[in-house]
């Protein structure tokens, strides 16, 4: 076998007329494709999935002359024939093998001018597909800096395509690329049909190898050498010098830890400001709506259901934006590839590849962007395991629960004004323990999953380490914009719907005000009478302040019993026997039930059932005191240390976030995985909380 069967189809030029021309943008990973795509489309890009696949693609409109084309950004691929997961799906999309998705009408292949020979491989494959093609010779600015000269004529002749030198970073050549699109792709039909000749004619195949890669590479090297040259070894040395530190088994891990620490410091510190603004903004909006709307069901629906629900999602947006911003910058510099390289050995110990590390780390901010970023993991097994264990990491939504447990155990163990130090240390230990528990559980779960349901070994490391480059702020900002919108769309719609459902479950059936005295406990009835008497005397004395304060107390009492009276409250009582071995009573259960949709609601729900109203959750001291004073039927403290620990363990391990589940189902391609995720995490959380409660009760 000395020839390779490369069938060249005559490019069929069909200007579709009615619909815009669909042009696919393809290139090797790290060829600067995203930058170029953003240059061409600006903010007019949409992210969506190819029908029936988990392949995400961005589509944008590009003005080329008087035409407007649809530019489709496919994931980076090394070859249009061979590959795995994303790469294979991208190749399928290119060949029109995805049902319901037409083959692109034309292709723009991006070639890195500093590394001609390797990138020509893909270009040669596309050329043989017989699709009209334009070659964008990217990173020309960098090539010039390295003193490389490239003969565009030779390259154009060999590839039978228009070659446009560009730089996505500086914007050089973008207008010429638009012109080429208008002239070559959207223009006259005769240009391309004459061009196709079989590559087999051109390959001087002297090596007696049957390997089609070698033949293609030989051709690519030949053309690359004829048209230009690759970056000298001298230039490579600089990258290698940096790599000696960054990929070092010890120093590399050190640098990695520092960078990741800085990232999380940014996420938790810098994000506080916009988060406070969002919180304050939605609070003000809620107050305003509450004051404008007549008191009642509609007001409650809009203020608590809608505004509270949307605010609850938006509050996480700053953290997610910072996460994506920094990760995009890091990826752009080429550092993330080194991070995956360094992490590979460590991650292999728990049966995962190095590429799983960044998603798992991101999960400490929010599981949703983390699951979305698992797409970089090639092997399906590795990707599924990563998705399944990601929600075990401590996300921001768990922090209010941790803070509550820390404050309450501090009050129990170190009461009084002294002991601030001890309380601080205890809080730190509890937080650290909770984070570690999540990480350990994730390692344990991935080991078990990798030996049972998703049997196999993590994919061996094969990873390109691109040259270090200055990151582009523009790309990072556009990515943040893009990802932010995806997050709002995916999480926003689901969580909005859920907020409405939770609101309804905690509101209906409504407790008629006159029935409060019937359902309330004797001591509450006594309190009610006391407050009413207070109001009367205060009003008579003209002391509106005391009267208002008493009225607020009555409202809190009412809210408490109204919650108990609602579907959610009844459900809490219904499941009491289930959670009793964990030390939870029905009041905690109401919070647990509500938190299965979104865990951050548990604190406010507990505040309501404790009778201090939703706003009571804002005041940490008041909340800790009030919850701390709640008792069991036998008069003992409800939130004792064993219960608090059990609650903490349960919230670390339980899958309590429906938006995450929706995203997991989408990215994994099936609800089956989301259900498995929910089941194993709930079982694990229940078991661990049970053991914690029983052991702690025996010890205390």
């Amino acid at each position, binding site marked *: 076998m000395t020839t390779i069967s490369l069938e060249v189809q005559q490019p069929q030029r069909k200007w579709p007329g009615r619909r815009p021309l669909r042009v696919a943008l393809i290139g090797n990973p790290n060829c600067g494709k995203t930058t170029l795509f953003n240059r061409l489309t600006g903010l007019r890009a949409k992210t969506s999935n190819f029908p029936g696949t988990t392949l995400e693609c961005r589509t944008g409109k590009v003005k080329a002359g008087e035409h407007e084309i649809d530019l489709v950004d496919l994931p980076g691929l090394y*070859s249009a024939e061979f590959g795995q997961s994303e790469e294979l799906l991208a190749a399928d999309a290119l060949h029109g093998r995805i049902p319901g998705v037409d083959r692109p009408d034309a292709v723009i292949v991006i070639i890195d001018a500093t590394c001609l020979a*390797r990138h020509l491989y893909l270009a040669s494959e596309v050329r043989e597909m017989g699709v009209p093609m334009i070659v964008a010779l990217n990173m020309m600015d960098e090539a010039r800096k390295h003193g490389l000269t490239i003969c565009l004529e030779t390259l154009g002749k060999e590839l039978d395509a228009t070659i446009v030198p560009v730089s996505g970073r500086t914007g050089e050549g973008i207008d010429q690329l638009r012109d080429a699109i208008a002239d070559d792709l959207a223009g006259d039909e005769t240009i391309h049909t004459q061009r196709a000749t079989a590559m087999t004619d051109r390959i001087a195949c002297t090596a007696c190898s049957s*390997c089609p890669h070698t033949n293609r*590479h030989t051709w690519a090297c030949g053309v690359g050498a004829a048209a230009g040259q690759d970056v000298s*070894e001298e230039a490579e040395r600089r990258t*290698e010098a940096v790599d000696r530190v960054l990929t070092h088994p010890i120093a590399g891990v050190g640098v990695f830890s520092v960078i990741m620490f800085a990232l999380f410091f940014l996420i938790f510190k810098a994000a506080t400001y916009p988060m406070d603004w969002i919180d304050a903004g939605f609070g003000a909006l809620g107050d305003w709506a509450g004051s404008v709307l007549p008191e009642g069901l509609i007001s409650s629906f809009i203020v608590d259901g809608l505004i509270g629900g949307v605010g609850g999602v938006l509050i996480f947006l700053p953290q997610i934006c910072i996460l994506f911003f920094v990760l995009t910058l890091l990826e752009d510099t080429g550092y993330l590839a080194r991070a995956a*390289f360094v992490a*590979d050995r460590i991650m292999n110990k728990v049966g995962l590849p190095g590429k799983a590390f960044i998603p798992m780390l991101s999960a400490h901010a929010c599981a949703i962007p983390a699951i979305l970023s698992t797409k970089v993991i090639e092997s399906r097994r590795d990707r599924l395991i990563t998705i399944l264990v990601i929600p075990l990491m401590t996300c921001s939504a768990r922090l209010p629960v941790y803070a509550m447990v820390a404050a309450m155990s501090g009050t129990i163990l170190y009461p009084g004004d002294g002991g601030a130090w001890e309380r601080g240390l205890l809080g730190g230990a509890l937080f650290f323990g909770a984070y570690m528990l999540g990480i350990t559980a994730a390692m344990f779960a991935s080991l078990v999953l990798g030996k049972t349901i998703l049997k196999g070994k993590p994919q*061996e490391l094969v990873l*390109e380490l691109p040259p270090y480059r200055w990151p582009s702020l523009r790309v990072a900002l556009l990515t943040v914009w893009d990802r932010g919108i995806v997050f709002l769309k995916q999480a926003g719609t689901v969580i909005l719907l859920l907020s409405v459902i939770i609101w309804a479950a905690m509101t209906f059936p409504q407790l008629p005000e006159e029935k409060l005295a019937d359902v309330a406990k004797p001591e509450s009835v006594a309190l009610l009478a006391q407050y009413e008497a207070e109001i009367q005397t205060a009003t008579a004395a003209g002391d509106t302040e005391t009267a208002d304060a008493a009225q607020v107390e009555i409202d809190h009492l009412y809210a408490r019993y109204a919650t108990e009276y609602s579907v959610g409250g009844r459900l809490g009582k219904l499941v009491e026997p289930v959670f009793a071995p964990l030390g939870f009573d029905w009041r905690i259960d109401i919070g647990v039930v509500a938190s299965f949709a979104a865990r951050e609601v548990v604190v406010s729900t507990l505040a309501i059932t404790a009778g201090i109203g939703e706003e009571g959750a804002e005041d940490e001291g008041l909340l800790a005191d009030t919850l701390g004073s709640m008792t069991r039927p036998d008069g003992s403290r409800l939130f004792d240390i064993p219960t608090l620990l059990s609650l903490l363990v349960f919230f670390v391990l339980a899958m309590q976030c429906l938006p995450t589940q929706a995203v997991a189902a989408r990215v994994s391609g099936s609800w089956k995985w989301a259900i498995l995720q929910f089941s194993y995490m709930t079982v694990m959380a229940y078991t661990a909380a049970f053991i914690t409660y029983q052991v702690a009760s025996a010890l205390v």
Partner: protein
Amino acid sequence: MSGSQTTPNQVNRLGGLGSQARTVALSELSAGSRGVIARIDEADHAMLIRLKTMGMHEGRAIRVVRSGTRIIASCGGTRIGLSAEVAKHVRVTPTA
């Protein structure tokens, strides 16, 4: 170039074999060594094809940048990070 299945040990024993036949697994080369790729054994298909599409193929010059359980090799202007497990299947004819 084919048929060079001698292990480094055999090569040492046989001593005087021509440089043509002397191939070493990429995983056994130390940092800084250079060579030409002689053969890529078909063991782990997917990963080896990936290596090839990244530009690591027979006849190409290769340089080891980092050795160990995780290796960095420079080939055709591209740096590739790979595990020793994969590198075992890449046979290299060392050059000076």
